[in-house]
């Protein structure tokens, strides 16, 4: 049930959504397509589902060439960001839809729908209309509907994007457990790196219509292939011409081999974490995060003289352009 995507290209007018993308999605795993919005990840997912057609390249699902197959023939389950519920049908009828189309016997449909509703914890809601459900419940209904036809692959397009933070977290954990039970090859699109790192077995980072890197969450976090992946997966700061995670910097109160001297210019406490801004002698502003205990052990104060270095074996990336502002990229730091 693997998916092989080779040399897929797609344009919308002048806009290149996908540029010669090749990805191999392993069978039975939970794979995240991660990237900023407009980067082409949803387009790739829709091409796998047959809802969009690639201009060039080839899609193979489970060893079968699906490039020209209509969505009806691909046997994929698709879950949309905004649920795409059949508003006039009850939850039961929504879930039963694919089975009714396939003209399965009535008692078989009833049994299967009961199973699925139990799987997504919606047993008591079968007779309700989608409008009478909360967002999280609607998305679980959509998932049950997609699973009803026993798809070879399950595709989810920003499935939790329309939900509030708390429900999103719950559903994320729940999707992970569900996948451990059902084992269907699953691909989901997200722009939230925490979501991808937490849930996925495999992550494909897509940006500007190209694949930046493919690998396990640990691979990507510890061995980012380039500056983009480094920046996208978590907070970064810059020391000299190296990008590094703020928690991979060591602060010393006296000089050590290969340290850079500076002053602590700002100390903020964010929950369990202490964020120290250091201005180096070259005028670079570097952000360092410490745990509370590390901070207390150092006895740091504002304006204290400090010496910085990158902890051994930490992932770093050389910065391509040096005229960028050197402090932590605010959007990424905030999203952590």
């Amino acid at each position, binding site marked *: 049930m693997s998916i092989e995507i080779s040399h897929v290209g797609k344009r919308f007018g002048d806009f290149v959504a996908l540029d010669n993308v090749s990805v191999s999605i392993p069978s039975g795993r939970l794979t995240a397509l991660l990237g900023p919005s407009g980067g082409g990840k949803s387009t790739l997912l829709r091409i796998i*589902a*047959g*809802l969009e057609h690639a201009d060039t390249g080839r899609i193979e699902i489970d060893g079968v060439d699906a490039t020209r197959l*209509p*969505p*009806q023939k*691909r*046997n*994929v*389950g*698709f879950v*949309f960001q*905004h649920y*795409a*519920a*059949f*508003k*006039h*049908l009850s939850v039961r*009828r929504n879930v039963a*839809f*694919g089975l009714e*189309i*396939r003209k399965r016997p009535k008692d078989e449909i009833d049994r299967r729908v009961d199973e699925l509703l139990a799987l997504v914890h919606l047993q008591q809601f079968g007779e309700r*209309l989608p*409008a009478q459900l909360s967002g999280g419940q609607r998305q679980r209904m*959509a998932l049950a*509907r*997609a699973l*009803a*036809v026993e798809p070879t692959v399950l595709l989810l397009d920003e499935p939790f994007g329309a939900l509030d933070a708390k429900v999103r977290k719950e559903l994320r954990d729940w999707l992970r457990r569900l996948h451990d039970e059902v084992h269907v090859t699953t691909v989901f699109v997200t722009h939230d790196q925490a979501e991808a790192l937490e849930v996925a077995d495999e992550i494909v980072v897509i940006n500007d219509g190209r694949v930046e890197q493919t690998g396990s969450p640990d691979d990507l976090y510890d061995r980012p292939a380039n500056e983009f992946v480094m920046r996208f997966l978590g907070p970064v700061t810059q020391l000299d011409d190296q990008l590094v995670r703020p928690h991979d910097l060591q602060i010393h109160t006296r000089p050590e081999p290969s340290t850079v001297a500076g002053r602590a210019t700002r100390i903020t406490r964010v929950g369990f974490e202490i964020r120290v801004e250091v201005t180096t002698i070259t005028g670079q502003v570097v952000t360092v995060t410490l745990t509370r205990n590390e901070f207390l052990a150092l006895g740091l104060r504002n304006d204290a003289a400090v010496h910085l270095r990158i902890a051994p074996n930490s992932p770093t990336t050389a910065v391509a352009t040096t005229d960028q502002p050197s402090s932590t990229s605010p959007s990424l730091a905030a999203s952590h």
Partner: protein
Amino acid sequence: MTSTTLVPGRPAGNRRPARTGLPLTRASGLGLGVATLWFSLLVLIPLSAVAVTASGGGWDGFWQAVTDAQTSATIRLTVGTALLVTLVNIVMGTLIAWVLVRDRFFGKRALEVLIDVPFALPTIVAGLVLLSLYGPNSPLGVNIANTRIAVFLAFLFVTLPFVVRTVQPVLAELDPQAEEAAASLGAGRYTTFRRIILPSVTPAIAAGAALSFARAVGEYGSLVLLSGNLPMRTEVASVRILSSIENDNPDSAAAVAVVLLAISLAVIVVLDVIQRRVMRRG
């Protein structure tokens, strides 16, 4: 007479139990009073007056007026043609609305505006247009003056916008992803249309159909020139009512009016039942 079904896009299965026994606030009580008074003055009292006039000659008088050969022929022609026209409108109106919403083509904006012309045109002008195009001096060589086709055509002309205009906004609001979801679940185009799109637009189609039927039943100006008003052949109910009044027979006129009213009500109820059934079946 169409107020009961004129709710295009009403959410499906909206059958909440009516809230009863809630005390009205002063403002909402006043609002309800004004609405009732308004509705009574404009609708209920005139309708009752017609019913009273119709019953002036007693049941026998009413029955005689209605079963009069010439009168019943006009009622049959009017209602029959109106039903036929409504059926055509259901299909063509939905199709036109579909094209306007889903397709992009040259001249779409112009078509958008032109759709309303039959509605905006004074009906007698419409009648004149039809007469000059399909009358004895037709530049096309098509002469349908003094035939039942003229009645049909005139009805069709004036009722064209109703289904289009009620269905179009509902169609535009449909979630295209619901159709994609249906496709990925294995539904072909026809199944998706019948089971996903149609149930959503059916209330709007029913509302448009009711409007179109009601308009056709009462139509006068657009057909009076072309149809020739031949008794037993092309005379419609509204023309018959006018001639009854002119012949100083208001009871007969009122009787015909009451029959048209009853039929219109029945059609609206039937449309509502059909619409609910289609929506539930999905």
